[in-house]
Every structure is written in C-alpha cells, then in structure tokens.
C-alpha cells in the first residue's frame, strides 16, 4: 500500500525525471567525446549522427525504409499471435498436446534459430514472405510459451471456485482461465515483438536488402558512418519506444493487482 503523500510522491517523480535527463545527457556527452577523439574513424560524433538522423527524417529516407520494415513485422507478429495463442491454449488444456509440444518449444526458445534465416531464401526468395518468415521464426517460441504459461497458471482456488459454482467447460476457459492468463499472454506478445524486430532486421541485413537493414548495409558500404549510426539509432529508438508504449498499455489494462496471485 502506498503511504506516501501526494507531494512526496511528486518530488520523487521529479527527481527521477531529473536523473533520467542527466543520464541521457551523460551518455550522449560520452558519445560526443568518443567521437571527437575519435576512438575509431568509423565512430562518428553524436552531433554528426543527429544531423544525419534529422536529414534522413526530413527527406523521407526513414519513411520509405520503415514502410518496408514494419509491414512484414506486423504481419508476422499477427500471424504468430493468433497461431501462438491457439497453440498455447491447446497445450495448456490437453496433456497430450503439452507432452508433444512443450519440449520442442523449450528447445527452440533456447536455441540460436537465427541460423536458419539464410535458408529462407531457398523457400521464400528475398521478398515480403521471407521477412515474415524470419519474424515468425524468432517470435513464435516466446509467444507460444507465454500463452501456455498464461493458460496453465490459473490459481487452483479459482478453478475450484468455478467448479463449485457449476461452471461449464467453456465458461471455465472463457471466464476464468483466459482472464487469469491474459496478462502473461499479452506480455508474451510484447516479448515476441522484441524478437520480431531482431528477425526483421536480421532478414534485411542477411537476405533481403530492403528497409532499415538495407540502410545500414548501404551506408556501411559507402563508409558514411554518421548515416549508418543514424539508421541504427533509429531502429533502436523505434523498437524501444514501441515496446515501452506496449508495456504502458499492458500495465494499464492488466494492472498487477488485478492479476491473480
């Protein structure tokens, strides 16, 4: 229970914002300093990177690159979300499916399955489908695993309660099991998206020279390091902003105190 008064709370919040601002200044300052020395000819200054960033933002380079990256990413995540939820549900409810599926998912989740990415070209060429496949490949294990955990982590007391009050099978799943697991399932989608970013970028760097990955490759080949760093900066910024927003949304919808313990 929060026992802090409003003003104390406010003060703590301001000081944490101050620290955060200081921390950003510190990191970018170090970057600028390291670029000025320079630690390497391939390491640009922060200011040069930022001006390249603004330039690419203004002339639409980023817009067209991200249009190519986000499409397959969203399609891949959507496919995996639907498939993963079904797979997790089946594994969570049927002991046979659990026996068959769980070890495979655990192995896949622990393994460097990125190594399969080069093979995708043989099946799906270098287009949209290849990127979707790379996204699915990397994001599926965590999404399936979290759905499964969400489904199986229903507190026993709530299951007994639904039994005692005569819930039918579908009521038990729809009214107890799914709401109880929704927080974990949503968290799985967020983690899956994080993996999906890696999948999309890896596919763009390795097999399909398009999108943000191609920007990075292109500027590296031309030794335009401020532009290369700006492209890398943009994808990390984009990923962390979208993941943070998702996390905020998650905390708002599935507040921890509303989750079963």
């Amino acid at each position, binding site marked *: 229970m929060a026992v802090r008064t409003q003003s104390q709370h406010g003060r703590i919040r301001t000081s944490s914002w101050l620290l955060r601002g200081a921390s950003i200044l510190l990191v970018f300052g170090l970057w600028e300093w390291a670029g000025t020395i320079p630690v390497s000819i391939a390491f640009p200054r922060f200011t040069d990177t930022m001006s390249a960033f603004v330039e690419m933002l203004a002339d639409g380079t980023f817009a067209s690159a991200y249009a190519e990256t986000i499409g397959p990413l969203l399609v891949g995540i959507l496919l995996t979300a639907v498939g993963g939820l079904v797979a997790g549900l089946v594994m969570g409810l049927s002991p046979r499916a659990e026996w068959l599926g769980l070890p495979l998912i655990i192995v896949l989740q622990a393994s460097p399955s990125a190594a399969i990415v080069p093979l995708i070209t043989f099946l799906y060429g270098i287009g949209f489908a290849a990127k979707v496949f790379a996204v699915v490949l990397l994001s599926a294990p965590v999404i399936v695993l979290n759905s499964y955990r969400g489904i199986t982590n229903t*507190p026993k*007391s709530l299951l007994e*309660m639904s039994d005692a009050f005569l819930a039918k099978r579908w009521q038990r799943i729809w009214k107890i099991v799914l709401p109880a697991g929704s927080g974990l399932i949503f968290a799985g989608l967020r983690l899956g998206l994080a993996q999906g970013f890696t999948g999309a970028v890896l596919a763009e760097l390795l097999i399909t020279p398009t999108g943000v990955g191609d920007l990075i490759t292109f500027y590296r080949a031309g030794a335009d390091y401020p532009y290369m760093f700006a492209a890398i900066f943009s994808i990390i910024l984009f990923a962390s902003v979208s993941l943070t927003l998702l996390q905020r949304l998650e905390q708002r919808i599935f507040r921890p105190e*509303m989750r079963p313990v």
Partner: protein
Amino acid sequence: MTDTPRLSSHGAPGTTGFSQEPAIRVMNLTKEYPGGIRALEGISFDVPKGELTSVIGPSGCGKTTSLKIIAGLVEATSGEVVVNGTQVRGPGPERAFVFQEFALMPWATVLRNVAFGLELRGFGRKERESIAHEYIAKMNLTGFEDAYPHQLSGGMRQRVGLARAMAVDADILLMDEPFASVDEQIRRKFQEDLLRLLSEEKKSVLFVTHSIEEAVYVSDQIVILTRGPAQVSNVVRPGIDRTGDPQNIRRSSAYLDCVESIWVELRNYLEE
C-alpha cells in the same frame, strides 16, 4: 433458528436426535492420496437440516479434504456422501462453497464477483445484479459494488465470498475456515453476523474451523476429528442459548465448559 430445541446430549457419530432426513449424510468416507498417504479413515456424520455443524480437529487432519469431498470438488477413495437424499457425484446447485482464501476474481468488481454464481447459471444481467445488490446490502458492502478485491480488506473480501455463496440460493453452505484469514476482532463480528444471517435465511451449514471457541460459539453440532488419517472422535451438541447478548454467551458457563471439554479431547491428538 433460535427456536430450534437444543439437546445437550453427546450423540454417537451418525446420529442426530432428529427423525427428519439430514441435509448431508456422510457415510464411511475414506480418502487416500497417490503415494499412499491416507487423509480420511472411514468418516461418518450427519448435518441436520437448518442447523450449523462444524468440523474441528488438529491441523492437517483432513477437515478441508472432507469438506471438498462433500462439495464434489475432490473424489473420495471410498464411502459416500448423500445430500438431500441423492448421492453426490460432483458439485451441485444445492451446495454453495465459501473458500478460505476467498477465491475472488481479481479482475472483476465486487458486483460481478457476487453475481458470478448466477452468471454461470445463465441469469440475465439485470436479474443477477439485482439479486447481487440484495446480498451486497445484507453483507454491509453497499458502496463497494464497483471496487476490486485488491481494494478491500480481508474481512470485506470474505463478505464478498459469503455474499456470492448466498446469492445462488443453495440450501447448504459449505464453509472452509472462512474466517481464518481475517483478524480476531473482525472475526468475532463476523461470527455474530453469520448467526444473524442464518437465522433469517434458514440454511444448513457445514463449517470447517480450527478454532474451538469459534466452533462452540456458532455451532449447533460439532464433529471432532482425530489426527490424520482422520476418524470421527466425537460429535458434540453445545446446546447454548443464543437469545441473549453475544458477550454474555461467551461468558456463560455452558460455553466455557464446552470449550474446555473439546480442548481436553483434542489435546490427545496433538503431536508430541
């Protein structure tokens, strides 16, 4: 229920002193868990209609197990449970359960939690919510309809659990240490509220507790179990006159003597 005649006889297991058919008849119940651990060893007792029967015994003796078997949540290894003349094969609409740890849905409001039993039975929203409002008022929860369980104290949470059980209008209430997670002062108030409510609603209650004082205070009949694997050690009818002030009941010699005699009996079953 205060007009029920109270007999102060120590009845043998399975007898009640009533010719009427009991609400619950438990016959020779045995439970063995996988791995050969025996929880119950041939338990038999009756829960008379319209009365409150409590089950008491050393901790871990299988009180909750027997209650969950009666609720149809756990299967017995052998023996049977007959409720209103029909053998129990699973949970049924004539029995409602109050859980020790409340078992409230953290994502649902008080109103939805109270109405949940009715929701599962397919009542329309209006109907189930008006019934729920009635029991919310009876449980002194008015004003908290839209609160979530995490915003309530332990005592209030259990009142939600009790309201949910009352709302489905079962004849029989099965209560698993309902006040164990509630602090002592609230618990006393609770016991008084429970008695008042039961005198209005005419239900048969089976009440599991580990508190001798609580059992004697609320019960018409007390089933004492031995240490696990549990057997019925004795069935006691405290026969306390509850017409007066609750404070006087707790000071009456009938109450104190009954508490003492159960303690003497239970002491034999404590672990050395």
